[in-house]
């Protein structure tokens, strides 16, 4: 498939020539900045921002602090809950999209809000939820409430807007995987006596595991690192870890502490990604073992149908 006759030296040269501009770019503007953050998290904070070049665990010690622990716990439960909500909504939506005849139109409809500027979307929710906002004036006009309800600047509004913002992150990978799923397997399960729900849970779910874990991780990571949503629609008690990092850099000017928090965020994200990759790998090897069986099933299912 690939070039086999090429001398190794030439391969080395050409590969380097093509790929190194990007390699150097990432090294300078991504690897080095990340390395600096790792380094700074072990240094002493400078008086006016910056750091003093002395090794210390001070930053990590500062992190063990009840108020930070509270933020960390809150970040965890808010992102867990929002992610689970996103995935639970995305499963039937991805399923319906995969089965639809109007896939391009539906993708278009999902992607428009997704690509609309995030601040505009947050702003739209502010104008809906605020005390003088659309929802309250509607409720007052309908006579349901007498005065505006406090619908915004609390954890509930943070979760609502997070789900709104990151729902497409869950829908798109699930749609892609379910779209590749062979729906005849569901019919086969139904023929064998399974109910619709049973056939979906027992036959489809094992086959779309990689989509589920991708949806989960790609929703969880950005929500876990969310900054704008808790800032703009959250209350005093909605601060998340992203807000702490930004405050430590821009207000308190404590770079080592910001770096240490960034390390946590990076580690959690990387663990998530490796878990996702591992589950995808497992699925791939699992599939290999069942190849023959799967092939037989496919042949039977598609018997009489022409495939491209």
């Amino acid at each position: 498939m690939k070039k086999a006759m090429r001398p190794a030296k030439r391969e080395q040269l050409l590969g380097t020539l093509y790929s190194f501009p990007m390699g150097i770019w990432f090294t300078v503007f991504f690897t080095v900045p990340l390395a600096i953050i790792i380094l700074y998290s072990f240094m002493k904070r400078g008086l006016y921002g910056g750091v003093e070049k002395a090794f210390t665990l001070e930053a990590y010690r500062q992190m063990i602090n009840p108020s930070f622990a509270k933020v960390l716990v809150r970040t965890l439960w808010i992102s867990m809950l929002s992610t689970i909500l996103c995935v639970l909504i995305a499963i039937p939506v991805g399923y319906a999209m995969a089965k639809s005849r109007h896939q391009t139109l539906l993708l278009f409809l999902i992607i428009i809000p997704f690509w609309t500027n995030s601040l505009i979307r947050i702003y739209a929710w502010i104008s809906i939820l605020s005390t003088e906002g659309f929802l309250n004036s509607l409720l007052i006009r309908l006579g349901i409430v007498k005065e505006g309800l406090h619908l915004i600047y609390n954890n509930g509004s943070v979760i609502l807007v997070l789900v709104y913002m990151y729902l497409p992150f869950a829908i798109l990978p699930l749609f892609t995987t379910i779209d590749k799923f062979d729906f005849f397997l569901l019919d086969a399960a139904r023929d064998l006596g399974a109910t619709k729900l049973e056939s979906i849970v027992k036959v489809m779910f094992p086959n779309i595991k990689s989509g589920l874990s991708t949806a989960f991780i790609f929703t969880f990571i950005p929500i876990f690192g969310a900054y704008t949503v808790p800032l703009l629609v959250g209350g005093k008690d909605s601060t998340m870890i992203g807000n702490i990092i930004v405050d430590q850099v821009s207000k308190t000017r404590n770079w080592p502490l910001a770096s240490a928090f960034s390390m946590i965020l990076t580690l959690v994200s990387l663990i998530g990604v490796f878990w996702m990759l591992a589950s995808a790998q497992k699925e791939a090897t699992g599939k290999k073992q069942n190849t023959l069986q799967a092939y037989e099933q496919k042949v039977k299912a598609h018997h009489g149908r022409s495939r491209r």
Partner: protein
Amino acid sequence: MNHHTYSKKKRPSFSNTMLILTILFLFVPLFVVTFFSFNSAKGMQWEHASLIWYKTLIFDSPSLWLAFRNSIIIALTSSVTATVLGSLAAIGITWYRFKGRSYITTISYLPMVLPEVIIGISMLIFFSSVKIRLGMFTIFVAHTTFNLPFVFMMVQARLDEFDYSTIEAARDLGANERQALVKVVIPAIMPAILSSFLMCTTMSLEDFVITFFVSGPGSGTLPLYVYSMIRYGVSPVINALSFVMILGTMLIAFTFRRFLKTAAASA
């Protein structure tokens, strides 16, 4: 593609109901801001239809136009840079085995999976440490960095499907390596290059978090302008701006319609 359009029953199923509700949920906020952008009053009480906020937006917002200009400059420059570097790297990685190959592959996935705050903060600290002044240049660098992985991934996916024997045919017919690249490979992967370019432009125009960290005085982009307006409270001019931006997004997505599935797969 649509080999399962055989369903017989027509009553709305649970999944179709969820789909419709979700699309409504996604669009209601956009409709609300659009609706109130045509309101003559400032608040969320409807008075009568008016285009006054669009007039303010177009004729009375010089800093918005400056931000818009910055956004366009950065979106174009960073998308071109990312598309060129990313496509070349994808060709190199797919076709050649060389030292440093796995490093480049691994490092190119990471910016995509790390939270934006991390990328923003690390770049801010990096630029301050090496004493590069924050401004248009640093925003350009940041945007190129977060755009590169998408180009690399999308072009690589296209190259994986590419039939290598066409190059051999071109070579047999007397084309040299450069001619084969320019006349055979690049036209074949052009759809992927174009769609990743569009994706880059969209992401660059959209980005707030990373830009927020690496921008300096006078280099504010459109999202930063929106941010400063939101911080000063709800303003009907933002409603008008929102509708314009929603229209812009629709236009981009419509141009992009052929590649929506690729975009969905790589999002």
